C-alpha cells in the first residue's frame, strides 16, 4: 500500500511541467503583443515612407515641370516679342527676360543633386534648350523694330517654332518619365506592403501554431491532471476502505479471541477448579474434627483454590462478560457499573430499557465495550463522584451516553488510544461518536447508531 502511494507521487505532474506551461503561455502572449506592435510600427513606417516617396517624387517632378514650363514661357515671350508692334513693351520685355532667366537659373541651381541619370539627362536637355533659346534671343534683342518686323516670320519659322517643338518633345519626355516615376513609386509601395503582409502572415502563423501547440499541451496536461486526481481519489478511497476493513477485522478478531479465551477459562479451567473446590470441600468435611493439623492443611488448600477461582473468573469476565450472554446487555452494563463503583470512588447509575435486549449481538458488544472504556476512563482520570450510563433504543436509532461530573478535558487535545478505539467501534457499525467535554465541567460521551433492521 505504502509503495503504491509513493509510486503515484512520482507520476504526479511535476512542478517543472507546470512552470513550462506557464512560461509558454507567457511567451505566446508576448508573441502576440510583439506581432501587434510590429504591425502598428510597420503601418506607421509605411505611412512615413509613402510620404517620403511622395515628397521625393514631388521634389523631383515639380522643378522639372516648373523648368519646362518656364522655358516654354520664355519661348512664348520670344514669340511675343518678335511679333510685338508696341514700342513701349520693349523695355519691359528685356526686364521680363532677365527675370525669367533668373528664375530658370534658380530652379536649375535648386534642383536636387540626388537624381537618376535619366532625370539628369532631362534636366540637361532642358538646360541645353534654354541655352539655345538664350542664344536665339541675344541677336533678336539687338534688332531694331523694323528689322525685327522684317525678320519676324522667318525667325519664327526657322528658329523659334522648331525650338518650341523640341521643348514640347522634351516636355512629353518629362511627362512620360513622370508617369514612369509614379508607376515605380507605386510598385515600391506595393512591394513594401507585400513584405509587411508577408511578415504579418508569418507572425500570425507562428502565433497560431504556438497557440495550437500550447492548447494541445494544456489539454493533455489537464486530462492527465484529471485522470491523476481521479486515480488518487480512487486509491485514497480504496486504502481508506481497506483500513476500515482492517480495523473492523481487528476488532472482530479481538472480540472472537477474547470470547474463546474467556469460554475456555470458564468452561475448562473454571469448571475444573469448581470440581476441585467441591472435592476439597468434601475432604474438609470428612476430616475428623480432632485432627487439627490436617484440617488446617485442607483449609489452606481450599483458600488457595478459592483465590484461584476468583482470579480466573475475574480474568474471564474482563475478557468477555458472561452476563452479556447469560443475562443480556442491561444486566451486563449494571454489573459493569457496580464493578466500577466497587473499585473506585465513583458511583455509577445505569438506565436502560428492555428493548435494549432486542438489538443484534455485535451492537451489544460494541455498546458494552464503549461503556466499559468510558467508565474506566472516568474512574481513572476524572475524579468524578457520579457517572450515568443511558441506553435508549428508539424506533430508528440506538442512543448511548456516558456522562460524569468529573473534571473534564479538552477532547481536541486529548485523544488517547481508548477514545480512538471507541470511535472506531462506533464507526464500524455506521454510528456517530462524539465527546462533549470541557476542562472543569464533566464529560459526556455519546454514540448514536442507526437502528439495524433485524
Amino acid at each position: 500500500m505504502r509503495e503504491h502511494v509513493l509510486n503515484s507521487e512520482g507520476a504526479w505532474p511535476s512542478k517543472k511541467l507546470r512552470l513550462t506551461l506557464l512560461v509558454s503561455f507567457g511567451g505566446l502572449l508576448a508573441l502576440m503583443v510583439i506581432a501587434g506592435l510590429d504591425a502598428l510600427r510597420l503601418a506607421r513606417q509605411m505611412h512615413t515612407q509613402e510620404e517620403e516617396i511622395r515628397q521625393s517624387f514631388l521634389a523631383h517632378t515639380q522643378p522639372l515641370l516648373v523648368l519646362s514650363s518656364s522655358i516654354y514661357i520664355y519661348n512664348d515671350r520670344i514669340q511675343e516679342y518678335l511679333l510685338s508692334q508696341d514700342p513701349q513693351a520693349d523695355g519691359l520685355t528685356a526686364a521680363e527676360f532677365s527675370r525669367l532667366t533668373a528664375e530658370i537659373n534658380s530652379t536649375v541651381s535648386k534642383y536636387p543633386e540626388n537624381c537618376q541619370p535619366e532625370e539628369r539627362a532631362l534636366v540637361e536637355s532642358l538646360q541645353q534648350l534654354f541655352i539655345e533659346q538664350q542664344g536665339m534671343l541675344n541677336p533678336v534683342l539687338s534688332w531694331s523694330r523694323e528689322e525685327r518686323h522684317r525678320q519676324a516670320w522667318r525667325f519664327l519659322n526657322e528658329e523659334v517654332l522648331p525650338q518650341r517643338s523640341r521643348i514640347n518633345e522634351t516636355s512629353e519626355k518629362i511627362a512620360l518619365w513622370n508617369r514612369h516615376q509614379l508607376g515605380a513609386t507605386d510598385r515600391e509601395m506595393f512591394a513594401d506592403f507585400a513584405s509587411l503582409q508577408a511578415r504579418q502572415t508569418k507572425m500570425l502563423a507562428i502565433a497560431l501554431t504556438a497557440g495550437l501547440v500550447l492548447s494541445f499541451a494544456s489539454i493533455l496536461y489537464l486530462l492527465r491532471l484529471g485522470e491523476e486526481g481521479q486515480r488518487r481519489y480512487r486509491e485514497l478511497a480504496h486504502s481508506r476502505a481497506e483500513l476500515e476493513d482492517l480495523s473492523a477485522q481487528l476488532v472482530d478478531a479481538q472480540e472472537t479471541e477474547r470470547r474463546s479465551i474467556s469460554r475456555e477459562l470458564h468452561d475448562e479451567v473454571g469448571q475444573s477448579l469448581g470440581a476441585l473446590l467441591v472435592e476439597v470441600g468434601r475432604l474438609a468435611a470428612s476430616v475428623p474434627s480432632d485432627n487439627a493439623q490436617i484440617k488446617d492443611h485442607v483449609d489452606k488448600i481450599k483458600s488457595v483454590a478459592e483465590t484461584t477461582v476468583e482470579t480466573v473468573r475475574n480474568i474471564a469476565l474482563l475478557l468477555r462478560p458472561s452476563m452479556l450472554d447469560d443475562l443480556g446487555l442491561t444486566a451486563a452494563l449494571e454489573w459493569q457499573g457496580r464493578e466500577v463503583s466497587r473499585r473506585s470512588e465513583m458511583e455509577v447509575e445505569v438506565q436502560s430499557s428492555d428493548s435494549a435486549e432486542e438489538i443484534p449481538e455485535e451492537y451489544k458488544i460494541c455498546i458494552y465495550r464503549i461503556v466499559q472504556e468510558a467508565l474506566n476512563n472516568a474512574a481513572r482520570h476524572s475524579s468524578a463522584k457520579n457517572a450515568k450510563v443511558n441506553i435508549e433504543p428508539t424506533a430508528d436509532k440506538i442512543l448511548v451516553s456516558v456522562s460524569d461530573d468529573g473534571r473534564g478535558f479538552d477532547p481536541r487535545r486529548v485523544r488517547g488510544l481508548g477514545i480512538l478505539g471507541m470511535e472506531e467501534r462506533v464507526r464500524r457499525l455506521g454510528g456517530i461518536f462524539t465527546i462533549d467535554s470541557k476542562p472543569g465541567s464533566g464529560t459526556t460521551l455519546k454514540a448514536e447508531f442507526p437502528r439495524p433492521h433485524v
Partner: protein
Amino acid sequence: MNLIRVLLADDHKLIRAGLRLVVDQQPDLSVVGEADDGRQAVDLAKTLKPDVVVMDIGMPNLNGIEAARQIREIRPDAAVVMLSMHSDEGYVLRALGAGARAYLLKDSATTDLVQAIHAVVEGKSFFSPAVSKVLLQDYMRKLQRSGAEDSYDLLSPREREVLQLVAEGKSNKEVASLLNLSVYTVETHRAKIMQKLDLKGVPELILYAVRKGIIS
C-alpha cells in the same frame, strides 16, 4: 419421613459428581436425577417430580435462569437452588425473578448446599454468606455516597415484621395468620413497604432483605 427428592443440573460431570456425593451423604436427601443442560433439566423436572432442583446458572442450550422459570411454571412446588460463579446482584436478582429461592456460589456449594436445600424445602430463602456480604457492601456504599437516609428507618415496626415474613417466602395468608391480621391489612402493608423502599416485585424485596441482613 419422606426423602427429599433432589434433581441436579450442571453441564460439568465433575461438579455434578461432587454435588451428588454431598447430597447422598444426607439421610433425608436423595438424588433422583442429573441433567446436562437446562432443557434436560426441564424435561426431568416434569417426569421425576423433584422437590428441589439444584441448578447451575450458566448452562448450554437453556441457561439456568430460563430453565428455573420454566420449571417453576410447570411445577410450582419444586424449589430451585441456583448455583453460580457470580456474586453480583444482576445474577441474584434475575435468579430470584425466575423463581429461585436459594443462591449459592459454587466456591462454597459443598458447605452450604445441604443447608440451602433444607431452607428452600421449608419455603425459606438461602444465600451464600459471600453473596449476602457483597450485596450488603454495595448497598451500604451506595447509601453512603449518595448521602441518602436509610429507607429502612422509614418503616414502622409492623411493616418490618411483614417485610421479613414476605422475604422469607410466606404468602399473604400465612403472614396474616402469623400476625393475627386480615389479609387485606397485610396487602396494604406490603404495598406501603414497596413504595417506601422503592422496590418493584418480590425478587427486589428479597434482595433488599438479604442486603439488610434481615434474612440470610
